[in-house]
Protein backbone atom coordinates (compact mmCIF):
# COMPACT_ATOMS: atom_id res chain seq x y z
CA UNK A 1 0.00 0.00 0.00
CA UNK A 2 1.44 3.37 -1.01
CA UNK A 3 1.78 5.76 1.89
CA UNK A 4 0.74 9.34 1.21
CA UNK A 5 3.56 11.64 2.27
CA UNK A 6 3.85 15.46 2.30
CA UNK A 7 5.70 15.13 -1.01
CA UNK A 8 2.54 13.84 -2.67
CA UNK A 9 0.66 16.88 -1.43
CA UNK A 10 3.39 19.13 -2.80
CA UNK A 11 3.05 17.43 -6.18
CA UNK A 12 -0.72 17.91 -6.05
CA UNK A 13 -0.14 21.55 -5.26
CA UNK A 14 2.28 21.92 -8.19
CA UNK A 15 -0.33 20.38 -10.49
CA UNK A 16 -3.06 22.72 -9.21
CA UNK A 17 -0.71 25.66 -9.65
CA UNK A 18 -0.05 24.72 -13.27
CA UNK A 19 -3.77 24.24 -13.96
CA UNK A 20 -4.43 27.65 -12.45
CA UNK A 21 -1.71 29.39 -14.47
CA UNK A 22 -2.89 27.77 -17.70
CA UNK A 23 -6.46 28.73 -16.85
CA UNK A 24 -5.50 32.37 -16.41
CA UNK A 25 -3.62 32.37 -19.69
CA UNK A 26 -6.13 30.62 -21.95
CA UNK A 27 -9.63 31.35 -20.64
CA UNK A 28 -11.46 34.45 -21.85
CA UNK A 29 -14.19 34.79 -19.23
CA UNK A 30 -13.22 37.14 -16.40
CA UNK A 31 -15.03 35.04 -13.78
CA UNK A 32 -13.24 31.86 -14.87
CA UNK A 33 -9.89 33.67 -14.86
CA UNK A 34 -10.69 34.78 -11.33
CA UNK A 35 -11.54 31.17 -10.37
CA UNK A 36 -8.20 30.06 -11.82
CA UNK A 37 -6.46 32.63 -9.63
CA UNK A 38 -8.26 31.22 -6.60
CA UNK A 39 -7.00 27.79 -7.69
CA UNK A 40 -3.43 29.14 -7.59
CA UNK A 41 -3.97 30.52 -4.11
CA UNK A 42 -5.31 27.15 -2.96
CA UNK A 43 -2.30 25.43 -4.48
CA UNK A 44 -0.20 27.73 -2.31
CA UNK A 45 -2.25 26.76 0.74
CA UNK A 46 -1.87 23.03 0.14
CA UNK A 47 1.85 23.46 -0.41
CA UNK A 48 2.25 25.47 2.80
CA UNK A 49 0.34 22.91 4.87
CA UNK A 50 2.27 19.97 3.40
CA UNK A 51 5.59 21.70 4.05
CA UNK A 52 4.47 22.72 7.52
CA UNK A 53 3.72 19.06 8.28
CA UNK A 54 7.01 17.92 6.79
CA UNK A 55 9.03 20.50 8.74
CA UNK A 56 6.95 20.11 11.92
CA UNK A 57 6.75 23.91 12.06
CA UNK A 58 3.65 26.00 12.69
CA UNK A 59 4.56 29.12 10.69
CA UNK A 60 3.29 27.57 7.46
CA UNK A 61 -0.17 27.02 8.90
CA UNK A 62 -0.29 30.58 10.21
CA UNK A 63 0.60 31.71 6.70
CA UNK A 64 -2.33 29.72 5.32
CA UNK A 65 -4.82 31.47 7.62
CA UNK A 66 -3.60 34.83 6.31
CA UNK A 67 -3.72 33.68 2.69
CA UNK A 68 -7.33 32.54 3.15
CA UNK A 69 -8.27 35.87 4.75
CA UNK A 70 -6.65 37.87 1.96
CA UNK A 71 -8.22 35.66 -0.71
CA UNK A 72 -11.63 36.35 0.82
CA UNK A 73 -11.01 40.10 0.80
CA UNK A 74 -9.81 39.90 -2.78
CA UNK A 75 -12.87 37.94 -3.84
CA UNK A 76 -15.16 40.56 -2.30
CA UNK A 77 -13.38 43.47 -3.99
CA UNK A 78 -12.78 41.60 -7.24
CA UNK A 79 -16.39 40.56 -7.75
CA UNK A 80 -17.47 44.13 -7.00
CA UNK A 81 -15.10 45.39 -9.68
CA UNK A 82 -16.36 42.81 -12.16
CA UNK A 83 -19.99 43.82 -11.46
CA UNK A 84 -19.13 47.51 -12.03
CA UNK A 85 -17.49 46.49 -15.30
CA UNK A 86 -20.47 44.37 -16.34
CA UNK A 87 -22.91 47.22 -15.70
CA UNK A 88 -21.03 49.38 -18.21
CA UNK A 89 -20.18 46.81 -20.84
CA UNK A 90 -22.82 44.07 -20.43
CA UNK A 91 -20.13 41.44 -20.89
CA UNK A 92 -17.45 39.66 -18.88
CA UNK A 93 -15.39 38.60 -21.85
CA UNK A 94 -11.76 39.67 -21.55
CA UNK A 95 -11.52 40.33 -25.30
CA UNK A 96 -13.98 43.21 -24.86
CA UNK A 97 -11.54 44.97 -22.52
CA UNK A 98 -9.88 46.91 -25.27
CA UNK A 99 -10.50 50.64 -25.08
CA UNK A 100 -6.89 51.22 -24.16
CA UNK A 101 -4.30 49.86 -26.57
CA UNK A 102 -0.95 51.29 -27.51
Amino acid at each position, binding site marked *: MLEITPLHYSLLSAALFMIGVIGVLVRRNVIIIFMSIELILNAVNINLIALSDQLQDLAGQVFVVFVIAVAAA*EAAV*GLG*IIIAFYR*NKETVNIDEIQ*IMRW
Partner: protein
Amino acid sequence: MPAGFTAADFYYLLPELLLTGGALLVLVVDLLFPRREEATLGMTLLTLAVTGAAVVGFTGVDTTISAGLLAVDGFATFFKVIVIVSALLTVLMSPSYLRVEAVRAGEYYFLILCATLGMLFMASGIDLITLFIGLETMAISFYILAGYLKPNQRSNEASVKYFLLGAFSLGILLYGMSLFYGATGTTSLGGMAEALAGGERSLMLSLALVLLVAGMGFKIAAVPFHMWAPDVYEGAPTPVTAYLSVGSKAASFAMILRIFIEGLPSLVADWQLLFWVLAAVTMTVGNIAAITQSNIKRMLAYSSIAHAGYILIGVVAATERGVAAALVYLWVYVFMQLGAFAVVAMLRRQDVIGDELKDLSGLYLRKPFAAVAMLIFMLSLGGIPPTAGFMGKLWLFGAAIESGFVWLAVIFVVNSVISLYYYYRVIVFMWLKDETAGSDIVISPAMATALVIAVVGSLLFGVYPQVLFDHAQIAADMFGSAVSTAALR
Protein backbone atom coordinates in the same frame (compact mmCIF):
# COMPACT_ATOMS: atom_id res chain seq x y z
CA MET B 1 10.97 32.72 19.22
CA PRO B 2 9.13 34.46 22.09
CA ALA B 3 5.46 34.85 21.31
CA GLY B 4 3.09 37.64 22.18
CA PHE B 5 3.10 41.40 22.18
CA THR B 6 4.66 43.66 24.75
CA ALA B 7 3.90 47.28 25.59
CA ALA B 8 7.06 48.32 23.73
CA ASP B 9 5.63 46.80 20.53
CA PHE B 10 2.67 49.15 20.69
CA TYR B 11 4.99 52.09 21.29
CA TYR B 12 7.01 51.31 18.18
CA LEU B 13 3.82 50.67 16.18
CA LEU B 14 2.65 54.21 16.97
CA PRO B 15 2.81 55.51 13.34
CA GLU B 16 0.75 52.59 12.05
CA LEU B 17 -1.74 52.87 14.91
CA LEU B 18 -2.16 56.61 14.39
CA LEU B 19 -2.69 56.10 10.68
CA THR B 20 -5.30 53.38 11.25
CA GLY B 21 -7.15 55.52 13.78
CA GLY B 22 -6.98 58.56 11.52
CA ALA B 23 -8.28 56.59 8.53
CA LEU B 24 -11.30 55.45 10.56
CA LEU B 25 -11.88 59.01 11.77
CA VAL B 26 -11.91 60.19 8.15
CA LEU B 27 -14.88 57.88 7.54
CA VAL B 28 -16.62 59.20 10.65
CA VAL B 29 -16.00 62.83 9.67
CA ASP B 30 -17.32 62.08 6.19
CA LEU B 31 -20.46 60.61 7.74
CA LEU B 32 -21.00 63.57 10.09
CA PHE B 33 -20.37 66.30 7.52
CA PRO B 34 -21.38 64.72 4.19
CA ARG B 35 -21.40 68.05 2.33
CA ARG B 36 -18.19 69.43 3.79
CA GLU B 37 -15.36 68.06 1.73
CA GLU B 38 -12.85 70.38 3.45
CA ALA B 39 -13.52 68.53 6.71
CA THR B 40 -12.48 65.12 5.31
CA LEU B 41 -9.57 66.69 3.48
CA GLY B 42 -8.40 68.40 6.67
CA MET B 43 -8.73 65.18 8.67
CA THR B 44 -6.72 63.27 6.04
CA LEU B 45 -3.94 65.85 6.01
CA LEU B 46 -3.87 65.95 9.82
CA THR B 47 -3.61 62.14 9.98
CA LEU B 48 -0.73 62.10 7.53
CA ALA B 49 1.06 64.93 9.34
CA VAL B 50 0.73 63.23 12.73
CA THR B 51 1.84 59.87 11.30
CA GLY B 52 4.78 61.56 9.61
CA ALA B 53 5.79 63.22 12.88
CA ALA B 54 5.63 59.86 14.68
CA VAL B 55 7.76 58.22 11.97
CA VAL B 56 10.37 60.98 12.09
CA GLY B 57 10.35 60.65 15.89
CA PHE B 58 11.80 57.14 15.51
CA THR B 59 14.85 58.36 13.57
CA GLY B 60 17.94 56.58 14.79
CA VAL B 61 16.00 53.71 16.39
CA ASP B 62 17.15 50.23 15.34
CA THR B 63 15.12 47.39 16.80
CA THR B 64 12.84 44.51 15.87
CA ILE B 65 9.39 44.25 17.40
CA SER B 66 6.39 41.90 17.51
CA ALA B 67 8.46 38.75 17.99
CA GLY B 68 10.65 39.47 14.97
CA LEU B 69 7.88 40.29 12.50
CA LEU B 70 8.65 43.98 12.02
CA ALA B 71 11.79 46.11 12.12
CA VAL B 72 11.93 49.76 13.11
CA ASP B 73 15.26 50.85 11.65
CA GLY B 74 16.78 53.55 9.49
CA PHE B 75 15.79 51.73 6.31
CA ALA B 76 12.13 51.43 7.35
CA THR B 77 12.02 55.04 8.51
CA PHE B 78 13.47 56.28 5.21
CA PHE B 79 10.82 54.46 3.20
CA LYS B 80 8.02 55.48 5.56
CA VAL B 81 8.95 59.13 5.03
CA ILE B 82 8.94 58.60 1.25
CA VAL B 83 5.50 56.98 1.41
CA ILE B 84 3.97 59.63 3.66
CA VAL B 85 5.33 62.53 1.62
CA SER B 86 3.94 60.99 -1.56
CA ALA B 87 0.58 60.36 0.13
CA LEU B 88 0.54 64.00 1.25
CA LEU B 89 1.23 65.30 -2.27
CA THR B 90 -1.37 62.93 -3.72
CA VAL B 91 -4.03 64.10 -1.29
CA LEU B 92 -3.21 67.74 -2.07
CA MET B 93 -3.72 67.25 -5.80
CA SER B 94 -6.98 65.31 -5.34
CA PRO B 95 -9.77 67.73 -4.24
CA SER B 96 -10.09 69.73 -7.46
CA TYR B 97 -9.90 66.55 -9.55
CA LEU B 98 -12.57 64.81 -7.47
CA ARG B 99 -14.81 67.86 -7.76
CA VAL B 100 -14.63 67.82 -11.56
CA GLU B 101 -15.32 64.09 -11.65
CA ALA B 102 -18.17 64.59 -9.14
CA VAL B 103 -17.36 61.60 -6.96
CA ARG B 104 -17.57 61.30 -3.18
CA ALA B 105 -14.35 62.17 -1.38
CA GLY B 106 -14.75 60.33 1.96
CA GLU B 107 -14.04 56.76 0.92
CA TYR B 108 -11.41 58.00 -1.51
CA TYR B 109 -9.27 59.51 1.25
CA PHE B 110 -9.92 56.48 3.46
CA LEU B 111 -8.62 54.16 0.75
CA ILE B 112 -5.56 56.34 0.14
CA LEU B 113 -4.77 56.09 3.85
CA CYS B 114 -5.32 52.30 3.81
CA ALA B 115 -2.90 51.94 0.91
CA THR B 116 -0.42 54.06 2.86
CA LEU B 117 -0.83 51.76 5.87
CA GLY B 118 -0.01 48.74 3.73
CA MET B 119 3.09 50.50 2.42
CA LEU B 120 4.29 51.25 5.97
CA PHE B 121 4.14 47.53 6.73
CA MET B 122 5.97 46.71 3.51
CA ALA B 123 8.73 49.10 4.57
CA SER B 124 9.20 47.56 8.00
CA GLY B 125 8.27 43.89 7.49
CA ILE B 126 11.11 41.41 8.00
CA ASP B 127 9.00 38.29 7.70
CA LEU B 128 7.38 36.92 4.54
CA ILE B 129 3.95 36.92 6.24
CA THR B 130 4.09 40.58 7.30
CA LEU B 131 5.42 41.66 3.91
CA PHE B 132 2.62 39.77 2.17
CA ILE B 133 -0.08 41.31 4.39
CA GLY B 134 1.33 44.80 3.78
CA LEU B 135 1.48 44.19 0.05
CA GLU B 136 -2.14 43.06 -0.08
CA THR B 137 -3.44 45.88 2.12
CA MET B 138 -1.91 48.23 -0.41
CA ALA B 139 -2.94 46.30 -3.52
CA ILE B 140 -6.60 45.79 -2.56
CA SER B 141 -6.96 49.51 -1.80
CA PHE B 142 -5.49 50.29 -5.21
CA TYR B 143 -7.83 47.87 -7.01
CA ILE B 144 -10.76 49.91 -5.68
CA LEU B 145 -9.10 53.28 -6.23
CA ALA B 146 -8.24 52.48 -9.87
CA GLY B 147 -11.93 51.88 -10.55
CA TYR B 148 -13.16 54.74 -8.39
CA LEU B 149 -14.91 56.51 -11.30
CA LYS B 150 -17.62 53.88 -11.60
CA PRO B 151 -19.52 55.17 -14.68
CA ASN B 152 -16.25 55.73 -16.56
CA GLN B 153 -15.40 52.79 -18.82
CA ARG B 154 -11.68 53.50 -18.88
CA SER B 155 -11.57 53.50 -15.10
CA ASN B 156 -13.51 50.20 -15.07
CA GLU B 157 -11.07 48.64 -17.46
CA ALA B 158 -8.09 49.85 -15.49
CA SER B 159 -9.55 48.34 -12.35
CA VAL B 160 -10.37 44.96 -13.92
CA LYS B 161 -6.92 44.71 -15.51
CA TYR B 162 -5.09 45.74 -12.37
CA PHE B 163 -7.14 43.36 -10.26
CA LEU B 164 -6.71 40.31 -12.51
CA LEU B 165 -2.99 40.80 -13.09
CA GLY B 166 -2.37 41.88 -9.50
CA ALA B 167 -4.09 38.80 -8.10
CA PHE B 168 -2.31 36.55 -10.61
CA SER B 169 1.08 37.98 -9.69
CA LEU B 170 0.20 37.58 -6.02
CA GLY B 171 -0.44 33.89 -6.63
CA ILE B 172 2.96 33.50 -8.31
CA LEU B 173 4.69 35.45 -5.55
CA LEU B 174 3.01 33.38 -2.84
CA TYR B 175 3.95 30.11 -4.51
CA GLY B 176 7.54 31.28 -4.57
CA MET B 177 7.30 32.20 -0.90
CA SER B 178 5.85 28.79 -0.01
CA LEU B 179 8.76 27.08 -1.78
CA PHE B 180 11.22 29.25 0.14
CA TYR B 181 9.48 28.25 3.32
CA GLY B 182 9.92 24.62 2.31
CA ALA B 183 13.60 25.08 1.48
CA THR B 184 14.52 27.01 4.62
CA GLY B 185 11.91 25.97 7.20
CA THR B 186 11.20 29.53 8.27
CA THR B 187 9.35 32.62 7.06
CA SER B 188 11.62 35.11 8.77
CA LEU B 189 14.12 36.82 6.48
CA GLY B 190 16.93 36.59 9.03
CA GLY B 191 16.22 32.88 9.52
CA MET B 192 16.20 32.32 5.77
CA ALA B 193 19.62 33.97 5.43
CA GLU B 194 20.98 31.72 8.19
CA ALA B 195 19.46 28.54 6.76
CA LEU B 196 20.93 29.27 3.33
CA ALA B 197 24.31 30.42 4.62
CA GLY B 198 25.87 27.04 3.75
CA GLY B 199 25.44 27.85 0.07
CA GLU B 200 23.48 24.70 -0.82
CA ARG B 201 21.41 24.71 -4.00
CA SER B 202 18.39 22.75 -5.09
CA LEU B 203 15.86 22.80 -7.89
CA MET B 204 13.25 23.96 -5.40
CA LEU B 205 15.36 26.97 -4.46
CA SER B 206 15.97 28.03 -8.07
CA LEU B 207 12.26 27.71 -8.86
CA ALA B 208 11.37 29.70 -5.76
CA LEU B 209 13.81 32.45 -6.75
CA VAL B 210 12.41 32.73 -10.28
CA LEU B 211 8.82 32.87 -9.02
CA LEU B 212 9.71 35.50 -6.42
CA VAL B 213 11.51 37.68 -8.96
CA ALA B 214 8.57 37.36 -11.37
CA GLY B 215 6.04 38.21 -8.65
CA MET B 216 7.96 41.27 -7.51
CA GLY B 217 8.61 42.22 -11.14
CA PHE B 218 4.85 42.56 -11.61
CA LYS B 219 4.60 44.92 -8.66
CA ILE B 220 7.31 47.30 -9.87
CA ALA B 221 6.14 46.90 -13.50
CA ALA B 222 9.47 45.58 -14.79
CA VAL B 223 9.52 44.36 -18.40
CA PRO B 224 8.30 41.67 -19.30
CA PHE B 225 5.80 41.91 -16.43
CA HIS B 226 4.74 45.47 -17.27
CA MET B 227 1.75 44.96 -19.60
CA TRP B 228 -0.75 46.12 -16.99
CA ALA B 229 0.97 49.40 -16.15
CA PRO B 230 0.22 51.64 -19.17
CA ASP B 231 -3.46 50.67 -19.28
CA VAL B 232 -3.98 51.00 -15.55
CA TYR B 233 -2.09 54.29 -15.38
CA GLU B 234 -4.12 55.70 -18.26
CA GLY B 235 -7.53 54.60 -17.00
CA ALA B 236 -7.23 55.27 -13.27
CA PRO B 237 -8.05 58.72 -11.84
CA THR B 238 -4.91 60.87 -12.26
CA PRO B 239 -4.07 61.34 -8.53
CA VAL B 240 -4.44 57.57 -8.04
CA THR B 241 -2.12 56.97 -10.99
CA ALA B 242 0.36 59.33 -9.39
CA TYR B 243 0.26 57.50 -6.07
CA LEU B 244 0.38 54.13 -7.80
CA SER B 245 3.48 55.04 -9.77
CA VAL B 246 5.35 56.52 -6.80
CA GLY B 247 4.10 55.10 -3.49
CA SER B 248 3.45 51.57 -4.63
CA LYS B 249 6.75 51.47 -6.52
CA ALA B 250 8.75 52.75 -3.54
CA ALA B 251 7.12 50.26 -1.15
CA SER B 252 7.68 47.39 -3.59
CA PHE B 253 11.34 48.33 -3.88
CA ALA B 254 11.58 48.37 -0.09
CA MET B 255 10.21 44.83 -0.13
CA ILE B 256 12.61 43.73 -2.89
CA LEU B 257 15.64 45.14 -1.06
CA ARG B 258 14.55 43.52 2.19
CA ILE B 259 13.83 40.08 0.74
CA PHE B 260 16.81 39.77 -1.57
CA ILE B 261 19.55 41.58 0.30
CA GLU B 262 18.55 40.75 3.85
CA GLY B 263 16.92 37.34 3.29
CA LEU B 264 18.82 35.81 0.38
CA PRO B 265 22.39 37.16 0.46
CA SER B 266 23.87 33.74 -0.27
CA LEU B 267 21.98 33.53 -3.58
CA VAL B 268 23.31 36.92 -4.64
CA ALA B 269 25.00 35.67 -7.82
CA ASP B 270 21.73 34.17 -9.07
CA TRP B 271 19.39 37.07 -8.41
CA GLN B 272 21.98 39.60 -9.53
CA LEU B 273 21.94 37.99 -12.95
CA LEU B 274 18.12 37.93 -13.07
CA PHE B 275 17.85 41.58 -12.04
CA TRP B 276 20.65 42.60 -14.41
CA VAL B 277 18.63 41.31 -17.35
CA LEU B 278 15.38 42.77 -15.97
CA ALA B 279 16.99 46.19 -15.44
CA ALA B 280 18.51 46.35 -18.93
CA VAL B 281 15.32 45.20 -20.70
CA THR B 282 13.06 47.36 -18.53
CA MET B 283 14.82 50.64 -19.20
CA THR B 284 15.21 50.00 -22.91
CA VAL B 285 11.64 48.87 -23.60
CA GLY B 286 10.16 51.53 -21.29
CA ASN B 287 11.99 54.38 -22.99
CA ILE B 288 11.45 53.21 -26.56
CA ALA B 289 7.73 52.64 -25.97
CA ALA B 290 7.39 56.06 -24.31
CA ILE B 291 8.59 57.81 -27.46
CA THR B 292 5.54 56.80 -29.49
CA GLN B 293 2.89 57.86 -26.96
CA SER B 294 0.50 60.75 -27.53
CA ASN B 295 -1.25 60.42 -24.17
CA ILE B 296 0.69 62.03 -21.30
CA LYS B 297 -0.47 59.56 -18.65
CA ARG B 298 0.58 56.68 -20.88
CA MET B 299 3.88 58.36 -21.66
CA LEU B 300 4.53 58.88 -17.95
CA ALA B 301 3.59 55.23 -17.38
CA TYR B 302 6.28 54.04 -19.78
CA SER B 303 8.68 56.58 -18.30
CA SER B 304 7.88 55.17 -14.86
CA ILE B 305 8.62 51.66 -16.18
CA ALA B 306 11.98 52.95 -17.41
CA HIS B 307 12.65 54.50 -14.01
CA ALA B 308 11.95 51.16 -12.33
CA GLY B 309 14.71 49.81 -14.55
CA TYR B 310 17.08 52.55 -13.39
CA ILE B 311 16.34 51.87 -9.73
CA LEU B 312 16.91 48.14 -10.28
CA ILE B 313 20.55 49.04 -10.98
CA GLY B 314 20.86 49.82 -7.27
CA VAL B 315 19.49 46.35 -6.48
CA VAL B 316 21.84 44.68 -8.96
CA ALA B 317 24.85 46.45 -7.46
CA ALA B 318 23.84 44.85 -4.11
CA THR B 319 26.34 46.89 -2.14
CA GLU B 320 25.72 49.46 0.52
CA ARG B 321 26.39 52.10 -2.13
CA GLY B 322 23.87 50.47 -4.45
CA VAL B 323 21.15 50.37 -1.82
CA ALA B 324 21.86 54.00 -0.90
CA ALA B 325 21.66 54.97 -4.59
CA ALA B 326 18.28 53.24 -4.95
CA LEU B 327 17.03 55.09 -1.86
CA VAL B 328 18.28 58.44 -3.16
CA TYR B 329 16.64 57.85 -6.52
CA LEU B 330 13.31 56.79 -5.02
CA TRP B 331 13.30 59.92 -2.88
CA VAL B 332 13.92 62.37 -5.73
CA TYR B 333 11.52 60.39 -7.93
CA VAL B 334 8.70 61.25 -5.51
CA PHE B 335 8.92 64.95 -6.29
CA MET B 336 9.44 64.87 -10.04
CA GLN B 337 6.90 62.16 -10.83
CA LEU B 338 4.17 63.39 -8.49
CA GLY B 339 4.76 66.94 -9.72
CA ALA B 340 4.31 65.88 -13.34
CA PHE B 341 1.09 64.06 -12.48
CA ALA B 342 -0.13 67.08 -10.49
CA VAL B 343 0.14 69.19 -13.65
CA VAL B 344 -1.78 66.53 -15.60
CA ALA B 345 -4.47 66.40 -12.89
CA MET B 346 -4.70 70.20 -13.08
CA LEU B 347 -5.50 70.02 -16.81
CA ARG B 348 -8.68 68.06 -16.08
CA ARG B 349 -11.59 70.47 -16.46
CA GLN B 350 -15.33 70.16 -16.99
CA ASP B 351 -14.94 70.09 -20.78
CA VAL B 352 -11.40 68.67 -21.19
CA ILE B 353 -10.09 65.27 -20.09
CA GLY B 354 -6.62 66.76 -20.27
CA ASP B 355 -4.50 63.64 -20.62
CA GLU B 356 -3.43 64.10 -24.24
CA LEU B 357 -0.11 65.70 -25.07
CA LYS B 358 -1.87 68.36 -27.14
CA ASP B 359 -3.83 69.49 -24.09
CA LEU B 360 -0.54 70.96 -22.85
CA SER B 361 -0.32 73.24 -25.89
CA GLY B 362 0.33 76.84 -25.02
CA LEU B 363 0.38 76.15 -21.30
CA TYR B 364 3.10 78.75 -20.85
CA LEU B 365 0.80 81.51 -22.10
CA ARG B 366 -2.10 80.35 -19.95
CA LYS B 367 -0.40 79.41 -16.70
CA PRO B 368 3.30 80.33 -16.70
CA PHE B 369 3.82 79.00 -13.17
CA ALA B 370 2.47 75.55 -14.02
CA ALA B 371 4.47 75.46 -17.26
CA VAL B 372 7.72 76.34 -15.50
CA ALA B 373 6.98 73.73 -12.82
CA MET B 374 6.35 71.09 -15.51
CA LEU B 375 9.61 72.15 -17.20
CA ILE B 376 11.51 71.50 -13.96
CA PHE B 377 9.85 68.08 -13.50
CA MET B 378 10.67 67.07 -17.08
CA LEU B 379 14.31 68.17 -16.78
CA SER B 380 14.55 66.33 -13.47
CA LEU B 381 13.04 63.14 -14.94
CA GLY B 382 15.48 63.45 -17.82
CA GLY B 383 18.38 63.90 -15.39
CA ILE B 384 19.61 67.38 -16.33
CA PRO B 385 21.62 69.28 -13.69
CA PRO B 386 21.00 71.14 -11.40
CA THR B 387 17.81 69.14 -10.74
CA ALA B 388 17.42 66.34 -8.21
CA GLY B 389 17.00 63.74 -10.96
CA PHE B 390 20.59 64.35 -12.02
CA MET B 391 21.91 63.62 -8.53
CA GLY B 392 19.87 60.42 -8.37
CA LYS B 393 21.22 59.23 -11.72
CA LEU B 394 24.76 60.17 -10.74
CA TRP B 395 24.57 57.98 -7.66
CA LEU B 396 23.10 55.02 -9.51
CA PHE B 397 25.80 55.37 -12.15
CA GLY B 398 28.50 55.49 -9.48
CA ALA B 399 27.08 52.42 -7.73
CA ALA B 400 27.00 50.44 -10.99
CA ILE B 401 30.60 51.35 -11.85
CA GLU B 402 31.82 50.65 -8.33
CA SER B 403 30.35 47.15 -8.38
CA GLY B 404 31.84 46.48 -11.81
CA PHE B 405 28.65 46.52 -13.87
CA VAL B 406 30.12 48.70 -16.60
CA TRP B 407 27.84 47.47 -19.39
CA LEU B 408 24.76 48.09 -17.30
CA ALA B 409 26.03 51.63 -16.69
CA VAL B 410 26.48 52.12 -20.44
CA ILE B 411 22.93 50.92 -21.16
CA PHE B 412 21.74 53.27 -18.42
CA VAL B 413 23.39 56.32 -19.97
CA VAL B 414 22.20 55.50 -23.49
CA ASN B 415 18.67 55.15 -22.14
CA SER B 416 18.87 58.48 -20.32
CA VAL B 417 19.68 60.12 -23.65
CA ILE B 418 16.75 58.39 -25.39
CA SER B 419 14.41 59.54 -22.63
CA LEU B 420 15.32 63.20 -23.19
CA TYR B 421 13.51 63.05 -26.53
CA TYR B 422 10.05 62.54 -25.08
CA TYR B 423 10.60 64.78 -22.06
CA TYR B 424 11.61 67.63 -24.38
CA ARG B 425 8.56 66.98 -26.51
CA VAL B 426 6.39 67.95 -23.54
CA ILE B 427 8.35 71.20 -23.24
CA VAL B 428 7.94 71.88 -26.95
CA PHE B 429 4.17 71.50 -26.62
CA MET B 430 4.01 73.86 -23.65
CA TRP B 431 6.07 76.63 -25.22
CA LEU B 432 5.90 76.42 -28.99
CA LYS B 433 2.41 75.18 -29.85
CA ASP B 434 -0.66 77.37 -30.08
CA GLU B 435 -3.24 77.35 -27.35
CA THR B 436 -6.06 74.84 -27.68
CA ALA B 437 -9.70 75.39 -26.86
CA GLY B 438 -11.20 74.60 -23.48
CA SER B 439 -12.26 76.48 -20.39
CA ASP B 440 -9.82 78.24 -18.09
CA ILE B 441 -7.37 76.20 -16.06
CA VAL B 442 -7.89 76.80 -12.36
CA ILE B 443 -5.12 76.09 -9.86
CA SER B 444 -6.71 75.45 -6.47
CA PRO B 445 -4.73 76.40 -3.32
CA ALA B 446 -4.17 72.72 -2.46
CA MET B 447 -2.89 72.03 -5.96
CA ALA B 448 -0.62 75.07 -5.80
CA THR B 449 0.82 73.80 -2.51
CA ALA B 450 1.50 70.38 -4.05
CA LEU B 451 3.22 71.98 -7.05
CA VAL B 452 5.36 74.23 -4.87
CA ILE B 453 6.47 71.32 -2.66
CA ALA B 454 7.30 69.25 -5.74
CA VAL B 455 9.26 72.08 -7.37
CA VAL B 456 11.18 72.82 -4.18
CA GLY B 457 11.97 69.12 -3.73
CA SER B 458 13.09 68.71 -7.35
CA LEU B 459 15.47 71.66 -7.09
CA LEU B 460 16.61 71.52 -3.46
CA PHE B 461 18.03 67.99 -3.63
CA GLY B 462 19.76 68.85 -6.88
CA VAL B 463 21.52 71.89 -5.50
CA TYR B 464 22.09 70.68 -1.98
CA PRO B 465 21.99 66.85 -2.01
CA GLN B 466 24.29 66.22 0.95
CA VAL B 467 21.49 65.86 3.54
CA LEU B 468 19.77 63.28 1.37
CA PHE B 469 23.01 61.35 0.74
CA ASP B 470 23.75 61.22 4.47
CA HIS B 471 20.29 59.92 5.32
CA ALA B 472 20.33 57.33 2.53
CA GLN B 473 23.77 56.17 3.67
CA ILE B 474 22.56 55.73 7.24
CA ALA B 475 19.47 53.85 6.03
CA ALA B 476 21.60 51.57 3.84
CA ASP B 477 24.07 50.88 6.65
CA MET B 478 21.80 48.24 8.18
CA PHE B 479 22.50 46.08 5.14
CA GLY B 480 26.23 46.37 5.76
CA SER B 481 26.74 42.99 7.41
CA ALA B 482 24.46 41.02 5.10
CA VAL B 483 26.03 42.47 1.98
CA SER B 484 29.65 42.03 3.00
CA THR B 485 29.12 38.36 3.84
CA ALA B 486 27.58 37.88 0.42
CA ALA B 487 30.41 39.73 -1.28
CA LEU B 488 32.99 37.49 0.38
CA ARG B 489 31.56 34.42 -1.26
